[in-house]
């Protein structure tokens, strides 16, 4: 793993990255050996019915008993995962540690590459005089950008959410690794690899399909192809990328079919994600809502809630068509907030990307409150769970209240970053210090 990490980053930042990976692996190895591992792997915040390791093991023992793992309602992983772990089950701890390290390294490289691209573009725009005269304070400087890739890696590897998720052996870590590799492939400008990883991510958990427009926009930008309906090269590229993506997806699904010789997995994986039959509590919004829903409205609200996840893709793509990487960040965050079975591992992925946008900090409005909310909620989850499930002195509403405030905090966090990003863009083009016609200080409002 070390060798991989060392080979992967040949820049001058390799040594700190290796150190971070080492620390992260040590923490995980210690936790794996401790008695906490069993406790963590049962936590509903860390594992969901979709990605719990217990269910992976159950699926494999069902296969051993000659029972299709999809004949019951316990196993909801894709067939490739079950075959992957069929060979690697004895090394699962190492696999999950490597997966985490791989995610961090991929994110590191992706951010490094993206920063280079960003800096080049900033230089170009400066030469073209696209930025307002008074916006020099907002421009990014190499010294500030230098440590961002490392910060991203640290944010991912040492985030307690990731650590918990890894120690619980939640297969969410694998989804995160695939998405990180997808970001890397996209940023590096490889349409084939990007499509392969995007289709893998879609195949694993369905929701990453909303990252498709972001990847396409980035690749077009990289090739200097304008997003115009009239330009033929735009259509050729779009068709190429779509067919690559759909082709990979078809191959994956057909491959899964041939592995188990049945289509049961479609219903058991994607039907399970979309129809939300399992109401095991988690940090999301679905479980209690549908436990309390009136039966005849249930279908309607399932549709509304699922459309809600996918819906933001269209307006966000239009609004952020110049900034596909920020669009990716937004999409990943929205998925992890509104998906049907979220876990802290999903939250950790978009939180790892926050250092990328550290230059937005001067426009963030309520980051302090939101951080406090997130920290307090994370600490209260186990407390209120204990009160409800074990002590019996609280009821389900207590835990539900915490999931609500946790999600409000996440929504505020993401929309705050979105606001800050848009505001910085405005200031870049209109100058940092806005004045009215009479020369007095002007305030900026959304209209």
């Amino acid at each position, binding site marked *: 793993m070390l060798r991989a990490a060392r080979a992967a980053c040949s820049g001058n930042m390799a040594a700190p990255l290796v150190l971070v990976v080492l620390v992260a692996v040590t923490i995980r190895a210690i936790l794996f050996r401790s008695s906490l591992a069993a406790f963590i792997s049962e936590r509903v915040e860390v594992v969901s019915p979709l990605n719990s390791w*217990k269910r992976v*093991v*159950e699926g*494999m*023992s*069902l296969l051993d*008993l000659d*029972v299709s793992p999809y*004949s019951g*309602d*316990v196993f909801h992983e894709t067939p490739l995962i079950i075959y992957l772990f069929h060979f690697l089950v004895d090394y699962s701890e190492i696999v999950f540690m490597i997966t985490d390290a791989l995610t961090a390294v991929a994110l590191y490289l992706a951010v490094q590459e993206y920063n280079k691209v960003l800096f080049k573009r900033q230089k170009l725009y400066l030469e073209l005089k696209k930025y307002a005269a008074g916006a020099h304070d907002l421009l990014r400087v190499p010294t500030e950008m230098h440590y961002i890739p490392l910060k991203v890696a640290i944010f991912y590897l040492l985030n307690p959410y990731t650590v918990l998720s890894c120690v619980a052996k939640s297969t969410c870590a694998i989804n995160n690794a695939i998405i990180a590799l997808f970001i890397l492939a996209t940023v590096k400008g490889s349409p084939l690899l990007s499509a392969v990883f995007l289709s893998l991510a879609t195949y694993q958990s369905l929701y990453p399909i909303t990252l498709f427009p972001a990847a396409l926009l980035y690749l077009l930008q990289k090739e200097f192809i304008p997003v115009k309906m009239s330009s033929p090269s735009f259509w050729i590229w779009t068709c190429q990328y779509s067919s690559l993506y759909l082709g990979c997806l078809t191959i994956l699904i057909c491959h899964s079919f041939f592995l188990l010789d049945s289509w049961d997995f479609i219903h058991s994986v994607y039907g399970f994600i979309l129809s939300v*039959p*399992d*109401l*095991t*509590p988690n940090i999301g*919004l679905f*479980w*209690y*809502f*549908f*436990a*309390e*829903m*009136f*039966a005849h409205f249930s279908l309607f609200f399932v549709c509304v*809630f699922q459309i*809600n996840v996918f819906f*933001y893709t269209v*307006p*966000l793509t239009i*609004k952020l068509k110049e900034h596909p990487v920020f669009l990716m960040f937004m999409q990943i965050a929205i998925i992890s*907030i509104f998906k049907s079975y979220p876990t802290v591992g999903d939250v950790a992925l978009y939180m790892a990307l926050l250092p990328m946008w550290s230059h937005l900090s001067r426009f963030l409005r309520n980051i302090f409150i939101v951080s406090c909310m997130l920290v307090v909620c994370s600490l209260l989850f186990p407390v209120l769970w204990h009160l*409800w*499930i*074990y002590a019996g002195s609280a*009821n*389900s*509403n207590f835990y*539900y209240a915490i999931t*609500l405030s946790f*999600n*409000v905090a996440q*929504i*505020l966090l993401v*929309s705050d970053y*979105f*606001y800050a990003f*848009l*505001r910085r863009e*405005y200031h870049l083009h209109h100058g940092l210090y*806005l004045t*009215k016609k*009479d020369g007095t200080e*002007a*305030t*900026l*409002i*959304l*209209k």
Partner: protein
Amino acid sequence: MAAVRLLIPVLLALAGGDATPRAHGDSFQEELLLSPLRSGDIAATFQFRTRLDSDLRQERVSHYRLFPKVLGQVISKYSIQELHLSFTQGFWRTRSWGQPLLQAPAGAELWVWFQESVQDVDKNWKELTNILSGIFCASLNFIDSTNTVTPTASFKPLGLANVTDHHLLRYATLPREIVCTENLTPWKKLLPCGSKVGLASLLEAERLYHSSYHSQSVHIRPVCRDAGCSAVSWELRQMLTVVFDMYTNGLGKRDWSLFKMFSRTVTEPCPLATQSKIYVDSGYDKKEIDLFEVTPSSSQDVEVPVHGDERVYALYDLLEPELFNTSRNLNVALKWKGGSDSGQPHPPVFHAERYVSGYGLQTGVINTMIYNNHPYRAFPVMFLETVPWYLRLYVHTLTIMTKGKENKPSYIHYVPAKDRQLPHLLEMLIQLPPNSITKISIQFERALLKWTEYPPDPNHGFYISPSVLSVLIPSVRNMKTDELEGSPLFSTIFPSSDGSSYFMRLYTEPLLVNLPTPDFSMPYNVICLTCTVVAVGYGSFYNLLTRTFQVEDNKKGGLAMKIANIIRRLRGVAPL
């Protein structure tokens, strides 16, 4: 006129009593077995056997004499091969009461073999359960796909059958079912004599339900009409077992009599019966019978092979007129002679118990302990576990430990549950070494259900049906089993192939498991609050997506601005 009406059936019954089989000689036998239990309690087992001498599978039977028409029609309509239904209140305590003749699980149990001609077994099963629900005034209509299973090996046909395709079998239990007098009345109506005369006149609901264990069952199966098995008859066997407690029913004394138990005595046999007998269990040898003084003294003692051993029974044949000559009624009484108890009761050869371990409402473990107390013989047991879907079993956590070592089952059949559709089914064949305790444990996770899926009083918990243990126990003595006719009814429930072992089916306790519950009082609040959070997300994104930044106009702000300026002035900051 009444006398004539009474006389004709009596004559018919007497005619049917002799050994020569007749063309349409339906027959009816009744029997009561009294067995004093080691704990001081007493078990009374009634058996009523009605035989229909025509084949319901092949011919259209339109004339029923003794066999209840309502069941005959159900069998023909739904092409039933075999039907076993039981309603039970209480739990048979094998450890203190010894092994039961035929145990039944608490609540209702129904298992049916359909004929091979049936196309859609599930449809027939669904309709049948609804019909039976009406016939027996029970909640059998709650049997649906979530509590029905198709065991592969635990339930074999007990009657004449060559079907072994287990897809024709359906098995369901309702552990929550409460059995009461409304189930007894329709059950008694199936008897040819009703509850007016004969042994059934003892069945008074008030006494029967004031007992520690009460189980009534109906078993319908095709049997051989004669020794050569040239023709098929249908047998309806109605069994009722009741255990009276020494303290609550017997006032703390071990003296029992029919009157003390049932508040009635037998005055006459059912005139339609070809056989009407009372047996009193006298134990394995003459030593035990000395503990009780049985009055009136019986005319004869019989030895019957039960549970792999010869037991001695005092027999009263109610069809012998001299039995009623002296006193006009028969009140069999057992008087405890005092004397020392025969020491420590030896434990039953085979018994089992089950419990849930773990704490909290997230996970738990179902543990089953199976005891083989046979001193030197190992035997296999077929273990069947049906667990509803809302307890998510993890079959990889299944462990079977015997004497500290892992015991690998030689056969496993596992059907995982489907949410809101199918229960878990686990069937295993486990070898039990002699003199051993085997512990089977499996982990489960408790699901959170939708608020409408909880039964009334959800915090009472959910009943999990008992596990079923079917076992062939090696006999202590090697004995030859007699043919069906002639021997007492209670020894012919399970067909036995050879004398070296006997079949037994035991049920463990039903479990009561709590599930986490949502707050039932606030669906509106939850819907509103969650929708608000989603709206906060939607609103803030919508706001940023559809609006653009603009420099504020020169207009002075409204009230909010004025308040803000006041605050700023207080803080010493320049106003906006």
